[in-house]
């Protein structure tokens, strides 16, 4: 293993550590609820292995529990996961070092923290396969392991909220969000998204606040006059 490989892996794991502290209890909650809803151990794990998106897995469980038809369960999953379309459009521009098969694998791992970490990394230096897959694979294994733990020892964590564990992910995404503040139009975009998502959250309700709120901020960025100083067509990662 070269020194660069090692330092890329170290950087990925350092970024991942606080995320794992939040994802593991979340995975355990999922595993516990899935078992309580009557899913077998194989089904509980199959869901985590194929869908790999906690909020949509919990929503699906809730609908399955209500006896909802298959199509409406699938509709809820797609609605909750639609934000990934935006992630893949954006992150795909930083994957020019990846082969076709590696891209196909990279997109499978493209969950919220992976997207944020990859974008933040690509803002300051070229995004390497080592960094991306070290972060993505360890998080995936962590998700599977915590789902299994939840399914087997359902009541291990009595009350995650007591330790503020439910607050780690919002504050983590907030802090990650702030690392993008040097990008042009950051404040108009973020404030528009915040306002739009709050309105949608209070009216239409979740999960629409993510997609519609996000699109509102993106629209602001698209409509703003382009900055003459910024090299527009290629994006910031092509320099490295």
């Amino acid at each position: 293993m070269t020194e660069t490989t090692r330092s890329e892996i170290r950087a990925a794991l350092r970024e991942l550590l606080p995320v794992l502290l939040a994802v593991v209890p979340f995975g355990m909650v999922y595993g516990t609820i899935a078992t309580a809803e009557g899913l077998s151990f194989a089904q509980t794990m199959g869901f985590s292995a194929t869908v790999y998106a906690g909020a949509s897995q919990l929503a699906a469980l809730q609908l399955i529990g209500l006896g909802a038809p298959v199509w409406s369960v699938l509709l809820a999953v797609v609605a909750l996961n639609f934000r990934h379309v935006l992630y893949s459009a954006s992150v795909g521009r930083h994957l020019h070092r990846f082969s076709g098969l590696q891209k196909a694998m990279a997109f499978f791992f493209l969950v919220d923290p992976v997207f944020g970490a990859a974008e933040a990394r690509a803002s300051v230096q070229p995004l390497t396969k080592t960094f991306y897959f070290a972060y993505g694979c360890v998080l995936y294994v962590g998700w599977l392991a915590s789902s299994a733990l939840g399914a087997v020892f359902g009541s291990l964590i009595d009350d995650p909220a007591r330790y503020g564990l439910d607050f780690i992910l919002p504050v983590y995404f907030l802090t990650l969000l702030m690392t993008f503040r040097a990008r042009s139009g950051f404040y108009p975009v973020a404030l528009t998204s915040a306002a739009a998502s709050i309105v949608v959250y209070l009216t239409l309700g979740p999960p629409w606040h993510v997609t519609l709120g996000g699109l509102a901020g993106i629209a602001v960025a698209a409509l703003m006059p382009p900055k003459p100083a910024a090299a527009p067509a290629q994006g910031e990662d092509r320099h490295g």
Partner: protein
Amino acid sequence: MDEIWWIILLAGGLTYLTRTGGHLLLARIGSIPPRLDAALNAVPAAVLTTIVTPALVSGGWPERIAILVCIVLALRLPLIVTVAIGTAMVAFARAAGF
């Protein structure tokens, strides 16, 4: 086959489509026009914001204050330190009965 397995396989396939769809659409377009590029550069700021706002709306005052404090802290402190302080604030506030 069990209905649950159909849901698992179809939901997994559809989710993978959302994770590749944006990139595949862009690949069909070929070159990215400047305004689209600006829009894509705004995706992190736009979407990460929407993941945070529910904590601001449906959280109590400890969560709201912690979010505002962390916005300021994030300007100065490393990511992991800000996350630790924010989480500790909320855990302490809850332990104190807020």
